[in-house]
Structure formats: structure tokens, C-alpha cells
């Protein structure tokens, strides 16, 4: 039994004119525990929709979607989502944002404080505990958002283009840090991105989604050693993966 199992998942939206939009069609994917999966595909192909379904934030139209062997019915404490727009609570400080999940689960104050301190250190925000989100740069806000997701000690992290709005340098730094965090936190990651190098650099497997209605076109195993180094970006096998994936996506546009 896979950790996250989607079989023949369909998702149909209705737009304002009551017209049907098929976002996902017969989407089948199984994810093993502690895997790092990236999902790429043309814009509007439904790759983000899949994350929302997996997070239990949207109901599926038909098919089976199981997490830890149980059908997904709503937001699960063991899965957490990170969004491109950070979506921090602007009225809460960095620390209060991170402690939001544990607070809802009535974790004791002492424990909350302890784990938020560790997380703040882990994402490199020491000294910014009492700042409000609007006082932070985009990169720092996304670090808070990642720490906030980790505070629930999730087994599955769903990331919807988390680095899409960041500049190239911040993006690279956060990619490296995310890999470190993933290894430390021992969790599974599903990561949607538009960037092919990012997909190759981070993933164990890259899932290529076809244009709408989204189905899985191909799953590519990335056979590069871990820990991943920055130098890999110029290695022949990396470039070969990149070229291959690019062709797959270009066929869809």
C-alpha cells in the first residue's frame, strides 16, 4: 500500500457560466513514504488542483484518493500545504504564525514554544521571531510559511509553486535549504513547479502532467546522487534530464 495513492481521480470544476472544466482526468499516481516528487506541466493543466485534492481542501469528483490507507475527506493534520503567495496571517508575528497549527491542536505552550524555536532556527529566521510578515522580504515570508507547515509535524508536505514569486538567488538558497529540511524532517514532499531545473534538482521522480484535462503523461526517475550539489546543474546527465523533460512539455503546448 502506497503512502499516497491516487487512482482514476477526476476533478470537474464549474465556472461562472456553469460550464464544466475538467481539471484532472483519470489521474493515477502512487507516492512512497519519504519520496520527493515534483510535478510539472503546462499552465492550467491541473497540477495544482491535484495538490488541493490531496490536501483535502477540495472534494474529488470521482476516483479514489487515499492517504495513509484512508480516503482523503478533509484537511488532515498529517499533511500540510505551502502556497506560492505565502499566505501568512498578517496580524500574527513570525512566532505566532508558526505556532498557529499546534495551538489549534491544544499543544501545551511550553512545547509549542520549544518547537517554534527549533523551527525558526531551522529556517534561519533567528532574531525575527517577533516581526510581522509585512516587515519581511518574500524569501523570509516563505521560510515562515514552510516553518508554519512543519510545525504540525506533517508526514506529507504539499507545495504549490512555493518559490515561484522569488528572485533567482533566493530561490536557489531556499531549494538547498528545503532539501536539508526534507532530510531532517523525514517527510514526503509533493512539489509543483514551472521550473524544469528546479524539478530535476529536487526530485526523486518528476511527474509530467499533460495539458488539460490533466493526466499523467510520464513519470521520470531522477537518478542523481544525494545530497544534491549545485555543481550538478552543469553535469551531462542533469542537462540530459532537463532536455528530455522540456521536450515532453513542449509536446503539450
Amino acid at each position, binding site marked *: 500500500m502506497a503512502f499516497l495513492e491516487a487512482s482514476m481521480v477526476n476533478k470537474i470544476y464549474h465556472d461562472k457560466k456553469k460550464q464544466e472544466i475538467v481539471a484532472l482526468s483519470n489521474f493515477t499516481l502512487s507516492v512512497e513514504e519519504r519520496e520527493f516528487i515534483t510535478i510539472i506541466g503546462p499552465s492550467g493543466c491541473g497540477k495544482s488542483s491535484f495538490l488541493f485534492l490531496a490536501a483535502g481542501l477540495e472534494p474529488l469528483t470521482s476516483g479514489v484518493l487515499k492517504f495513509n490507507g484512508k480516503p482523503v475527506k*478533509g484537511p488532515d493534520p498529517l499533511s500540510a500545504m505551502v502556497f506560492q503567495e505565502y499566505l501568512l496571517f498578517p496580524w500574527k508575528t513570525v512566532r505566532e504564525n508558526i505556532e498557529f497549527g499546534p495551538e489549534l491542536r491544544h499543544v501545551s505552550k511550553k512545547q509549542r514554544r520549544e518547537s517554534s524555536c527549533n523551527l525558526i532556527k531551522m529556517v534561519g529566521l533567528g532574531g525575527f521571531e517577533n516581526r510581522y510578515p509585512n516587515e519581511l522580504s518574500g524569501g523570509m515570508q516563505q521560510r515562515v510559511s514552510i516553518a508554519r507547515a512543519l510545525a504540525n509535524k506533517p508526514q506529507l508536505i504539499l507545495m504549490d509553486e512555493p518559490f515561484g514569486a522569488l528572485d533567482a538567488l533566493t530561490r536557489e538558497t531556499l531549494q538547498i535549504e528545503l532539501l536539508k529540511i526534507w532530510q531532517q524532517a523525514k517527510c514526503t514532499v509533493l512539489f509543483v513547479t514551472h521550473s524544469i531545473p528546479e524539478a530535476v534538482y529536487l526530485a526523486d521522480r518528476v511527474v509530467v502532467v499533460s495539458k488539460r484535462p490533466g493526466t499523467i503523461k510520464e513519470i521520470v526517475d531522477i537518478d542523481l546522487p544525494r545530497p544534491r550539489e549545485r555543481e550538478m546543474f552543469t553535469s551531462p546527465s542533469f542537462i540530459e534530464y532537463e532536455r528530455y523533460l522540456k521536450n515532453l512539455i513542449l509536446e503539450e503546448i
Partner: protein
Amino acid sequence: MDGSTKGLSRPVVMVNGTDLFCFSRSLFNRSKKLLSPLICLGVWELIVRLEFINPFFCPAPTSIVKELYVLLFTGELWMHLGDSVSRAVCGYFLASLLGVGVGLLVAWSRFVEDLIDPLIELIRPVSTFAVIPIFFIWFGIGDVSKVLIITKACFFPIVLNTIAGIKGVDPKLIQAARSLGAEGIALWTRVLIPSALPMILTGMRVATSMSVTTLVGVEMLSADSGIGFMVIDAQRVFATEKMFAGILILSALGFSFDRVARLVQHRVLAWHKGV
């Protein structure tokens, strides 16, 4: 003194370790905004003193201040002010309670919205002063109807801002909160309401000025106490100085209500960029 060397060549006068020149300059900078009102008052005083205008119709500022002084010390003012403030504050807080409550209900349930929204849209454009006779017939001409009329005036900005505030919360922020485990009541108390608070407080601040304007109207129409009554009563007996003094008090009242609301807004929304 030459502008380019003014920092160097001016004589420095020190009093108790303070540079007198700098002190007077900062005092001037701070009081710059008072200049135009002061000039107006001066001109006014002069016109009355030189008897271009009969002081009976428009008393000089100094005699208004003198009258204010008398009112302060005979205790008459305090009685009127106490009645006015308690009416405005009661009406305002009742409106806040109802406005936020109804607003949250409407934003929460589609059914309640369909039920209440047409009523809000029908009653809102009706002038508060137009419904005064109805309130007087229903609730008598005592304080109850006065408070309720003020409530009517303050209710609408608060209820509309509460609805707009809750409905305007970014749906993705709600999803983020849900994925972290916020559902049901926790979602409302911890995410939706704090998120809408800037809007709700703006509505409540707009309502403070409504409370004072309505208060004046109601007290002038029917009352035997309150600053509004004092002003209209002074007019009836041609006590123009008292009338002007009362108007001054009413402006000060409106101004201080707004300041208090602003202070609360700043305290509560320290995190918010807009304030």
C-alpha cells in the same frame, strides 16, 4: 542672515543647556498649522470690536471664551455634556453590538443574507431625520428614542463594513488556515474576524462621527438637556454667546470621539500597513 551660513554664523543662546534658537524654530514648525485659524480668529475679533458687525448676531471670540468659562464653572455645561455623551455612547455601542453581530450572521449564512440584506438595503437610504417622528411615537420623546435614533445612524456603516470585511477575506488565506487545522468556530475567531478587523474598525470609526451629528439633531428637535438642547435653547432666547460656545463644544466632542476611535484603531491594528 545668509542662508548658506546660517548654521555657523548665528549667535548661539543657551538656556539650561537647550539651544534657544532651535527650540523656538521647532516650536514654530509645530505651531505652523495653527497659524491660519489664529489669523481668522484675529480678523473676526477685530471686525466685531470695530463694530462692523453687531455683536448680538456674531459675538467676538473673546466673549465666546468668556461665556465658555462661565458655563464651565456654573456646572451647567457638565450636566448637558454628561447627558449628551451618555446618549451618544449608548447609541454607538448598541449599534456596534448589533452591527457587528448582524454583519457576522449575514456573512456566515447565505440564508440569513437573503433574509436580511433586502431589509438593510431598504432602510439604509432612509434619512435618519426622516424616521425621528416614528421613533418618537413608538418609544416616546425620552432618552430611549434618542439612543435608538443614534443607533440607527451608526448601525449601517458598521454592519456594511463587517459584511464586506468578512466576504473580502482572501479565499486562499482561508484554505491555508484550513490546511493547518482551522475549521468551524476556530476558523471564524482566529482567521476570518482578525482578517476583517481593519474593515470593521473603519466602519466603527465612521460611525463615531455619525453618532455626534445625529445626537445634535435629536437634541435640537426634542430634549430638555444636552448640548444640542443648550444651543437651540440659547438661540430661542437670543443668547448668541452661549449658542456659539455650545457649537464649539459640539465640534470638540466630534473631534475627540474620532481621536479616541483612531487611537483604538492604531492600538488594535499595530500590524496593519494601512494605519
